């Protein structure tokens, strides 16, 4: 029962905005075409957030948090953008971007695991640090070499984004559910002391998780630059909250110990549909509301976040784990 809440919210959102957006479909093909372009748009639009959110899900499972994710993606994009936009981009910029991503992830991971800095403080620090590095790399410029790279744009379009997302989703899902990793991470999140007593190499696992999140940030940067083509030092500010909000909305617990990858998937799309839908419904807003509809977006995201989490934790659906003794 519980797992239907998020899809239900998503579907009702789509229906609501289609209704408000005043679309008329003359024929089934018409509807199909609309649906195709809509979902393609949605997927490419939210691919960077979604990829980053997968990494964040694992981090939240270990009761950590990564506030630096947006700065990290921006920094990777900035580094990649400082190369020429020709074929050499593939074997110069991309590997370097990957390397930077892994190093940034490792920085976060070692701060948290080795130096024992609480995640929120460590990543708050690196958030500011990475953003500073962005500006050192870029200055005040805005660069856009990406569209000149042959074949790169493909990642910003539907098939590329879809391929990347499904590969990650399936690979991650399989690796996560059919190995000890999931249990180990959740145990680290749920009770770090017990995890140590259970012989789990807690520090190593934490570093691995943050490095993995760095890798996801790299993929996310690829998707982002392939779609938006230009980056500047201040790209993506505030994206970290969007990512965290989506993951939490998906049912992952901030205190650690419980996580859901498919929940994250829906969480990202619920927010993306809202975003997209409100933009599409601006005309309706002009006529019917005393204020600009786009302002409502903030309010609704807040309500959906709180309401979604509340429904996830409190609705009296038959729970498997009801008290029985």
């Amino acid at each position, binding site marked *: 029962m519980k797992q239907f809440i998020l899809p239900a919210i998503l579907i009702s959102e789509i229906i609501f905005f289609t209704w408000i957006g005043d679309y008329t479909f003359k024929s089934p093909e018409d509807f199909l075409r609309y649906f195709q372009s809509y979902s393609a748009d949605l997927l490419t639009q939210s691919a960077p957030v979604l990829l980053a959110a997968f990494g964040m899900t694992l981090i939240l499972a270990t009761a950590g948090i990564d506030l630096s994710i947006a700065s990290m993606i921006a920094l990777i994009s900035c580094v990649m953008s400082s190369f020429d936009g020709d074929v050499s981009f593939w074997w110069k910029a991309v590997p370097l971007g990957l390397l930077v991503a892994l190093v940034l992830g490792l920085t976060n991971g070692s701060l948290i695991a080795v130096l024992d800095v609480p995640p929120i403080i460590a990543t708050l620090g690196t958030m500011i640090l990475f953003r500073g590095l962005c500006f050192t790399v870029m200055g005040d410029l805005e660069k856009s070499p990406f569209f000149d790279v042959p074949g790169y744009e493909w990642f910003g379009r539907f098939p590329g984004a879809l391929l990347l997302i499904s590969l990650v989703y399936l690979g991650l899902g*399989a*690796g996560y559910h*059919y*190995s*000890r990793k999931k*249990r*180990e991470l*959740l*145990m680290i999140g*749920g*009770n770090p*002391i*017990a995890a*140590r*007593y*259970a*012989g*789990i*190499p807690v520090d190593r696992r934490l570093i691995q998780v943050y490095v993995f999140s760095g890798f996801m940030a790299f993929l996310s940067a690829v998707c982002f630059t392939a779609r938006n083509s230009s980056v500047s030092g201040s790209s993506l500010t505030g994206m970290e909250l969007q990512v965290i909000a989506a993951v939490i909305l998906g049912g992952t617990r901030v205190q650690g*110990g*419980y996580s859901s990858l498919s929940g994250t998937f829906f969480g990202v799309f619920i927010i993306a549909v809202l975003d997209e839908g409100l933009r599409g419904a601006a005309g309706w807003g002009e006529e019917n509301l005393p204020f600009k509809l786009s302002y409502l977006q903030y309010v609704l995201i807040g309500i959906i976040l709180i309401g979604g989490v509340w429904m996830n934790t409190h609705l009296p659906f038959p729970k*498997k*784990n*009801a*008290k*029985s*003794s």
Partner: protein
Amino acid sequence: MHSEFSPRQDTDPVLELCGISKSFSGVSALKDVSFSLGTGEVLGLIGENGAGKSTLIKILSGIHSSDSGEIRYCGSQITVSNPAQGLRLGIAAIHQELAYCGSLTVAENMMLAEAWPRLKWGGVDWTKLHGQACLRLQEFGLNLDTQQLCRELSAAEKQELSIARALSLNAKLLILDEPTASLSEPEIKRLFDRLAQLKKQGVSMIYVSHRLEEVLSFVDRICVLRDGEQVGLYPVEEASIPRMIRDMVGRPLNQVFPRTRESFQGTELLRVEGLGRDGLFQDISFQVNAGEMVGLGGLVGAGRSELARALYGLYPVDSGAIKLRETILNSKSNACDRLQRKMVYVPEERKKQSLVLDHTLFNSICIGFSDLAARFGFIPPSFEQKKTEHCMERYRIRATGFDQSVGTLSGGNQQKSILARWLERKPDLIILDEPTRGVDIAAKMEIHSLMDQLAADGKGILLITSDLQELLGMSDRILVMCQGRITTELKGDRMTEDNVILAASDLLTPSTEIK
């Protein structure tokens, strides 16, 4: 002790319970419990874990409310809707889970819910506050620095503090749930002296304990609960330990410590030479052989658990060497490495050190051994399924299913699931730290025979326990620790209760030794 203060049944009852029932989401926790309690009377409430003792206490102190039934207190019917109201009525409780606020000082904790002395302008008068708290502590014979933060106290001090607070409230009815769980002998004696004093003053008490000798020596009447039902209510004169156990378990248990194995000494598994860590333990040397159960006794705080954790690689050591079978473990060897070398450690605090309370039983058990079956990092799901089923059966874990969260299991089943987690790795050396604390009698029996079986199979076991009976009954050899050192080794005839107690306080000399 009871003979000194005879129950005064002639006075009006302080508390009367009529048909109290309570159920949690459809599962009945208490069914139709009725008893009364006179002024200055002590009622011993016994039963296995999950029998409903804690629920009853929570109803009386206002944390839960009862579904049906009536509570009459001092002649009038009451409903206690929250603990604050209970305290106003004069019902004070000491709960099993220690209630204290770690970041407040001892004095603040003592006085938390009461009015505090004020300065003229309305600020808190700290001098007076600390004075009052100090006075109350001394009344109980406790010498604590009232300025100290509560989280810096030892477990025993925390418990004594919560006892002292409850006793200082001038309550008419005192409910004590396992007050002696983390206390050692002298502290227990002090507690009973104080309780006897209060009893003389006419305070009625409900006393809950797993330690049946304590119950027998202190209470006037005994009420036995089993599965939420009241199965017996009789004066202490008619009680005996076998009868109490029979009532609690529902069937007679003939032997408490099943010892079927022959003493047999195999090869040396663990040798520790001059192990020391600053401030925790010094100069520890001993060895454990295959097929041997070595008991490690001593007072709470003597450094036994710290030693165990160091052996398991959770703490670095300053000096000395640990040799596991043929290998000397170097400083790089951590808990993970010890596990690979077939050494496991079952820690003392289940909830803190072993379990994630809201994880499922399945996950909780699998975490121990699933890596043994991994193929390229992937684990066939059917393997875990089968193995867990096998565990549930072999270790007799009673649960509604794999998906039940471990936090909702009873203490005994939790402990059995932890044992299952580790024993399925087929370890050679097992360190058990308080394996039966807070576990009901039937489960305790099962754990004991399991331990016996393990030793008979040739495993080496290091048993740390504060339960003297268990220590004496299970071990082949007893090492006694005192203030971070192993002071005595007891074998054969010398393994007696008195010797262990004396050795624990470092008082065992040839002249004091009882043969």
